[in-house]
């Protein structure tokens, strides 16, 4: 069964369970808002800037403020992660400590099911700060009996997050080639969305991080080339570049008060990816099959809007 094949199952829902999503205005969060809405959930966006007249609730990870945001919630999906922070201590304080505080509030509020959206960057032994912070949140979530997912590089028509950054990079005429170790595990928006709803609805799930990505990694060069095919520009030229030299240069530049297109830590995630997708059998047992990477044009042809996949005949 592919991700699309059983989307219709959600149509049989009686009543509307409530899902609250932190980081709902971010890329993955907005994908999930659409997916859970399409699956029949009442969706509560927990965001820093609630839309006027909407059912959004104010939520700020750094202050922990979420007045009433967890009341009557059946499923909490914790997507929020503040990528704007630059100081190491702030990154940890807000994204780890404040996430853990949110998990505790969810427990106190009696939220029956919480899913923490981690990352494929979170793997045993990673040196990447982002991956380490996600791992730290995972450890706390699992200790509280919560579910943890590790999405791969999510790509699709929404073009946000790291995929969006890479797509912008792909429009450049000359691109770095970091060698064969630079690769990513990928998942389309649709498959990610479908897997998340399936995980939210599963009665029992092993207490392990669930990878949401196709098992075959995609070479960084192939990824950029595929992302570039959507643009009208000529095919980019790849130039071999030592990744760690670029990493060192970025680290040095980060002490300067200049905005950089990519962080050293993010580069580390690209060139030192996870060795494999963790626990792929869990998704398989839920009847979810993540499709292999496809050029975005092909992927978007199957989808008419974020979170509203086309049903195959």
């Amino acid at each position: 069964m592919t991700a699309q094949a059983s989307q219709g199952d959600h149509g049989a829902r009686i009543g509307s369970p409530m899902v609250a999503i932190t980081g709902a205005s971010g890329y993955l969060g907005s994908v999930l808002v659409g997916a859970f809405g399409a699956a029949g959930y009442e969706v509560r966006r927990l965001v820093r800037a609630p839309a006027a007249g909407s059912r959004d609730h104010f939520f700020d990870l750094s202050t922990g403020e979420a007045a009433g945001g967890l009341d009557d919630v059946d499923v909490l999906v914790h997507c929020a992660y503040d990528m704007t922070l630059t100081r190491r201590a702030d990154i940890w304080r807000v994204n780890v400590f404040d996430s853990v505080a949110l998990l505790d509030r969810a427990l106190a509020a009696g939220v029956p099911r919480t899913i923490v959206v981690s990352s494929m960057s979170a793997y045993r032994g990673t040196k990447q700060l982002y991956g380490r912070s996600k791992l730290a949140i995972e450890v706390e979530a699992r200790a509280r009996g919560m579910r943890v997912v590790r999405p791969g590089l999510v790509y699709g028509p929404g073009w946000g997050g790291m995929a969006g950054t890479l797509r912008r990079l792909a429009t450049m005429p000359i691109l770095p080639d970091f060698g064969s170790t630079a690769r990513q595990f990928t998942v389309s928006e649709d498959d990610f969305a479908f897997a998340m709803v399936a995980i939210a609805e599963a009665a029992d799930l092993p207490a392990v991080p669930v990878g949401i990505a196709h098992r075959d990694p995609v070479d960084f060069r192939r990824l950029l080339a595929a992302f570039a095919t959507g643009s009208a520009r000529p095919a980019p030229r790849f130039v071999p570049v030592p990744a760690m030299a670029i990493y060192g240069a970025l680290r040095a530049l980060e002490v300067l008060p200049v905005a950089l297109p990519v962080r050293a830590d993010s580069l580390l995630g690209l060139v030192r990816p996870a060795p494999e997708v963790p626990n792929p059998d869990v998704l398989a047992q839920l009847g979810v099959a993540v499709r292999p990477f496809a050029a975005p044009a092909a992927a978007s042809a199957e989808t008419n809007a974020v979170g509203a996949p086309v049903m195959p005949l």
Partner: protein
Amino acid sequence: MKTALIIGSGPAAAGAALALTADPTQKVTVIDLGATLELDLGSSLGRLAATSEDAWSRADVAIIERQPAYSGGGVLPQKRTYGSDFPFRDVGQLDGIIASGTTNASVVSGAYGGFSNVWGAQVMPFSEASFDVWPVSLREMQPHYRTAMEEMTLAGDPDDLAELFPLPERARPLPPPAGRTARVLDRYQAERALVRSHGITVGRARLAFRAESCTRCGMCMTGCPYGLIYSSSHTFDRLRAENRIKYRSGLLAVHLEEVDGVPRVLARHSVSGSVEWLVADRVFVACGGIGTTRLVLGSLGRYDRAVHLQESVQFVVPVVSRSPIRDPRTARDFTLNQFNLLYDATGEGVDLCQVHFYEYNPALLAALPAPLRHRNAGPLIGPILRRISLGLGYVPGWAAPRVEVVARRSGAGANRLPTLEIGRRGSDRWPPMLNDLVRAMLRVAPTLDLWPVVPMISLSAAAKSYHFGSSFPHDRARSATTTDRTGRLAAWEKIHLVDASVFPSVPATTFTLTIMANAHRIVSEALGTSR
């Protein structure tokens, strides 16, 4: 009545005894070599224990506080307790143990209470993730941990370590922290997020001692005169006083077997050399990781084949601080481990290294480099002692070189344990995880004002940590080399191994509590009384 026989009197034996004596249908016998403190030292200790500190005689204190000889080179000297080496002394159990190179040869205790007479009293359970490779979950271990912690009387304060090692509600508060510890904890609290981002968590020690009665005489490291630090001998003292067990000392188990489904133990009297067979419905073997391995290998005739034990290798890390505290020689503090630094090498709560930090005690003076111990260096000592502390660290067993043992048929005739050769399998170089830890310590050194003196960090000799085991690890199915969850090898139905020899892994978090708890679990499950 059913009969049960326990071999040994260390923490594993104590855990087994607690479970057995909770079942009124069990008649429990304990056999042990049972070496104890020398009479003259016992007299001095008795006088100190019977009086308040202000009435102690200097002579008695000097005897009880006697320090081990320091051999230099960053090598930890063998600890003393109440001025004695009786926990390490050979009363027959070390006969035939041959250690290669610098490998520690005193790997089996013949003492009443085993090595718990000299342990650091640090008590933490294994983390939840540590049990991923065990056929037993942390949840299944919890009731047994609780029993063990209640028996040991745990003292600890709530802090960040509770994230991985939840503190029981009934833990008693620790005495106030010593000077350096208070500073480090304050600095950690102020920059907690930064320190944690480097994989390091800091918290106070969790100790098995009756903290509320501590007078802070500063003699913890040479033995508490009031016996406030837990030893498994305390458990056996109590069970003997209550007539719940029959205790027989002076016996060395040399052979195990089952005949027609009935287990029996051949024991040799340490004084006379005579032997006797002891029969019971079940036998629980608690001779320590290497002691049990030797007994089993000899009993099953498994000679001339290497067996590899995991060891959570120990290292010594001196640290200096820029800001001085007041001269610790004038302070009144307990001298057990004061605080812990936990390093999560890989971020998942599995690959944990731990460093226990000790502040001043007289042994620290003896360990200073020779020029600083010269009498003309007196004026320097104060400023130095105000800035130094000592860490004793551990690397997980799966990330460190193993201890290799080989049993050889004894040439000393029948009724003897096999000869056992011990050595380190692998390099004496630092395990890579220790490199990672030191790098992380250096990154947080300015924040904590705790600078590791890298050139003086030393890896202890093989088997020196006393945190070794896993020679017959628990597995889903038992076999010739693995045990089931009740510690049974394929060869035996009613002989259970209950000490660290059955650990599937040897994490770097503290060891003794899990030994005691797992022994309690094994016996409870074997008797069908597990909660």
